[in-house]
């Protein structure tokens, strides 16, 4: 079946998910003029380039969730969700990062579905 699982990762987990579909939540910034890519600061403070299949039609900023495929140290974006300013400012990134790392450390306790091979 298709791989619907999008594990949540942060910057340092990118390399272990090469070629896989992941979910990356972070703060968006520096949208390129062409709209074809922008930078996402991950929950552990790394800057990752996000490549869009088509140029963005709206402005992306603040708390953003990216679902896509890991390609070296960029993400090929499939879907994205932009959060409101209010949510962006009240979001606790530190706690989210701890949650991401815990569920990676203890995958048996945070079963999200059948893993990709």
């Amino acid at each position, binding site marked *: 079946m298709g791989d619907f699982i999008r594990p949540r990762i942060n910057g340092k987990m990118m390399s272990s998910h090469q070629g896989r579909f992941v979910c990356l939540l972070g703060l968006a910034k520096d949208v390129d003029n062409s709209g074809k890519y922008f930078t996402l600061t991950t929950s552990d403070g790394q800057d990752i380039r996000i490549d869009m299949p088509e140029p963005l039609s709206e402005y992306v900023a603040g708390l953003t969730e990216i679902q896509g495929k890991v390609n070296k140290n960029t993400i090929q974006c499939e879907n994205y969700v932009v959060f409101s300013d209010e949510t962006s400012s009240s979001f*606790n990134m530190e*706690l989210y990062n*701890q*949650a991401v790392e*815990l569920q990676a*450390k*203890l995958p048996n306790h945070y079963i999200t579905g059948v893993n990709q091979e």
Partner: protein
Amino acid sequence: MAAKLSNGSIEAIIQGGSPDKPVLQVISFKKISAGGSADRYRLLLSDGELTYSHAMLATQLNNYMEDGLIDNLCVIQVERYLCNTIQNDRRIMILLDVNVLQPGSQVGVRIGNPQQYKAGSTDGGQVNGHENTNNSNHMQTDTTPQQIIKPQNNSNGPMSTNNNKPGYSIKGGGAATASPSTTRVHSITSLTPYQNRWRIRARITQKSSVKTWSNSRGEGKLFSVNFLDESGEIRATGFNDAVDKFYDMLEVNKVYYVSRATLKTANKQYSSVNNDYEMTFNPDTNIEICEEETDLPTMTFDFVQISDLEKHQPNSMIDIIGVVSKCGDIGSVVGRQSQKEITKRDITLVDQSGVGVNLTLWGNDAQQFSGDGNPVIAVKGARLSDYGGRSLSVLASSQMIMNPDIRESHFLRGWYDREGQCMNFDKFASDGAGSSGAGGATNWKTFSQVKSENLGQSGKADFFTSKATIVYLKKENCMYQACPTDQCNKKVVDQGNGLYRCEKCNKEFPNFKWRMILSTNLADFSDNQWATCFQESAEMLLGEKADVIGNLREQDETKFDSLFQNALFKSFIFKLRAKVETYNEENRLKTVCLSATPVDWVQYGEHLVKEINQLVG
């Protein structure tokens, strides 16, 4: 080669002089066990010309003997000493601070040919007329008694008067010193049980409250204070009559002259003061307030800004100063261990850091406190806890001063009057779940733990905290009509004529107030738990005030029902109390909700991370 001894210094000292830092040889020593904890060392000293056996080492230097720093035949330079007169002519030298110039093993011999000092034969004979006195007046033997001579230690202050200098040697003449130290002041470190003609001038840095005791040997009351002067600190206790005599007059931070109290070896169990001795007030004790300006060290504080409190560990002692922005009412709690009711009062302190913190006062402090006028409060040694994020508590060992006369206090006063009163202060993020009874760490329990640990079944109440979700609310009999009098919550009887009677107040009223008794079933991942919620927590769960809910129940049933519907499946942090109650000779385990607070997800998340990390190890 051997160091040069201060010839003639012993003669000079005995005559009442105070040669500066004499270099002497310790011929031998003898340990005197005092029966109490402190041993004393008696020394046979030589200055190359005379030997003198009436010399004692101050107990704070005892380790010099025990570690072998001072041994037979070593040469020492006496940095600080004093001479006390006992029994008419006998003079005892007390060495307060000593520098070992050469160890005995290096010296190996008695330097010079010292002769035993004989009291009385002070003229001619043994002394070769060398005097190593610097800035003292060397007196002959037949001069007037009671001459004050300055000792040679680091004096920082005017040399003229005898007021604030530690360490005095009193030259006694033939007669016993009848008029004792009325104008002299001794240093606290020089006090010993062996000499009771002394007077100190010191500031009170701490005063306890009056404590009473009652045991098989009798009963009584006591209080204690800590005295501080330039040389050090000493603890003083007054029993029974002394409490009546001195308790009210002694105030923290003020300076007093104290004389004629009993000195004895300190009982370290009761005091952390650094002194081998402690003082007890007796019927002869004389205490007078000191009116003059002194430069005695004041209480030292190490204040922490309120915003920095989260950097400090819970259970640490903190010095804090702030303005009382809010003063709570007196409440009472049942002590977890003592099961007795204790009064408490919560006040809020704010400072220029823009953050406010809760300070809890207990017992007498709580009762006597008044927040009128937004006073500045300084506390030394308050205990920090992580209750409600960060919160402070005044313990018995803490010292609280209102509007202290120190710089920080003046700054705070000015700042508050100008801007502080209008500011909005940040509060510490509540950790959602507080503690039980008298304040302590949160006792998190899952509902399955509550059952398996039989909480509440041991006869006394068990307090715990759980994060849980409401799964059922009982609509029937969830509220009753109560007496409208403030603080009285007794159920009123409907007289039928529009009046409601309260049996407790013995009055009738044309109105009543609605009070909630809400039976609810809560659940967490492990199990469920029935609990009863009273007014405040019920109002929190339903999201409306009791009177509003009461009206809806009478008038708009649909809205009333939807209130209950909407509350379902909401999560809160519950503080619960489980206890077995006897009701008509039947024992039942009852669980009551003391408070329900909305979950602060960030706070709760951090709590979970901590627990997970503990489990993972």
